[in-house]
């Protein structure tokens, strides 16, 4: 997949205050055409506020937002006909059926749709057979799917998904993740994906932005940002003390992170894992398992805690 240098979203020094409360202090980032940008931050970091500001749902106190190179307030019609979004949970008219809900939002897309577009999109998100049902009986997962259907109905260039897996069970999370991957891989959409689930971002995004307390901490390509870090590797062994003294002679004792009864946690680069494993095996230390902790999780926590 190739990524363009065309900026689809440009956020510069975004600030939003509610009275004395500073929801955003200085958020800046860019989303390029073809990007799947993971938008990360702990609860209350300002992710949803940023997304609401991008979508003109709230008025920023200061700062600049450009979508497709234009001002979203002045060029509302042009910009929003090219965007599909879910902001927080996808809420619909519960007294209407899934199909009627989609028809309502389809009429407002500003795009002439094919006659069978609604049934096509219902099929795509896996809601075929339930389209005539009222939403009162829909599960959270089904509403999320309908939310994605609503997002995609006019085939937008930019998709903004704010916490699309909130409240879903593991199967629901997997389904939504697969849908997003499909959008990325098959339809080459530009996606801004805000999520708590770091594993989700690690699997889907090619670039990421991390914000905390209303400020951008870091942005860049996922690969570049994570390669700066060494891995956290957990070895489950039968003789921890022996392993420890061996590693001391090997010269990496400073990289011990924690030691407990059977586990040794090391911070080492990926290429050192076979050598350490060989060292244990050659010295009759039984290695029961080697696990690498998720890189993004560690990177994220370090960044936030610092």
């Amino acid at each position: 997949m190739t990524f363009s240098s065309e900026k689809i979203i440009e956020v510069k020094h975004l600030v939003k205050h509610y009275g004395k409360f500073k929801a955003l202090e200085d958020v800046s980032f860019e989303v390029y055409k073809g990007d799947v940008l993971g938008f990360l931050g702990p609860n209350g970091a300002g992710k949803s506020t940023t997304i609401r500001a991008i979508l003109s749902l709230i008025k920023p106190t200061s700062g600049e937002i450009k979508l497709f190179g234009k001002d979203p307030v002045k060029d509302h019609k042009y910009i929003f006909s090219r965007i599909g979004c879910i902001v927080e949970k996808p809420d619909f008219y519960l007294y209407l059926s899934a199909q009627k809900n989609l028809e309502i939002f389809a009429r407002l897309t500003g795009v002439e749709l094919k006659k069978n577009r609604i049934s096509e999109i219902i099929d795509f998100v896996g809601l075929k057979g339930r389209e005539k049902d009222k939403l009162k009986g829909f599960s959270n997962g089904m509403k999320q799917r309908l939310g994605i259907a609503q997002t995609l109905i006019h085939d937008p260039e930019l998709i903004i998904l704010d916490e699309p897996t909130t409240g879903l069970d593991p199967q629901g999370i997997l389904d939504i993740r697969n849908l997003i991957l499909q959008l990325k891989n098959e339809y080459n959409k530009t996606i801004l994906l805000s999520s708590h689930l770091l594993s989700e971002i690690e699997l889907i995004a090619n670039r990421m932005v991390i914000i905390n307390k209303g400020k951008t901490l870091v942005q860049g390509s996922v690969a570049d940002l994570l390669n700066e870090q060494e891995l956290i590797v957990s070895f489950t062994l039968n003789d921890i003390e022996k392993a420890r003294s061996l590693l001391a002679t090997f010269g990496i004792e400073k990289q011990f992170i924690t030691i407990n009864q059977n586990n040794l946690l090391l911070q080492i680069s990926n290429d050192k894992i076979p050598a350490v494993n060989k060292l244990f095996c050659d010295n009759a230390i039984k290695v029961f398992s080697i696990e690498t902790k998720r890189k993004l999780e560690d990177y994220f926590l370090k960044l936030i805690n610092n």
Partner: protein
Amino acid sequence: MFWKSTYNELIKIIAKPRSYIGLGAITLIIAIILFAMRLDGMTYLSFITQLFDQSLSFQGNILNGNLVAFIILQMLIVHIPLLIALVTGDLISGEGAMGTIRLLLTKPISRTGIFFSKYLAGCIYTFVILVWIGFLALGVSKFVFGTGDLMILKSEGLVIMQEQDIFWRFLSAFGIAYLGLIMIATLSITLSCFSENSIGPIVLTMAIIILFTIIGALDVSVLDNVRPFLFTTHMSTWNSFFENPLPTEQIIRSAVSLLLQIAGLLGIALYKFNRKDILS
């Protein structure tokens, strides 16, 4: 896009069960009035006629559809605003409460466009309610009681209007009553722009109507200067169309006053809605 949005708003109103509360209540009340008048209408009429028994003789179909329609309007006109507010007060804040406002405002239609499409849908709903009242009050009443001259007891005496002189009066009365109801719809939509829940604007609209009606009814000279500015004062102007001669100046003043208040409220609502941070 504006017309598509208005069409959407009408679909939502049609699909909401609460939209039928008004129609149902009106149908029930009118059915009860018609039933009661059919059973004991002459006794009701005798209260009026006995006052003039010694000086006038009444002939023909006195208890007719025109009189029943007038009675129905007098009874209902106080309550219809409450039924209107039930739907219009929910048009914007209801979207906030449901969370659908987020989706709506991220579509390629301006906030002003969304506001006016909701407003127009509210006006159409109000019109439908009024047409339904007209159909039941005039159409069904005439079917049940037949037609005839209209006899109304006013403070200045008994007013009798000939049958052929009545229909245009009813039409005009409905016209000015519609303006009054649009005022209620505008008020509730304006309040709806300031709220995140649907109950608040409905209750507040009802409270304002009750408060203004009480102030209007209080016979205290201190309030004489306030009364002309209360929209509730002008909402009863429909009654003026059943006077001879027609108080044209008063009717025009009421219509202008209602129009100005509607325009003022629309300005406030639009200003608020366009600048509102969507936090729901």
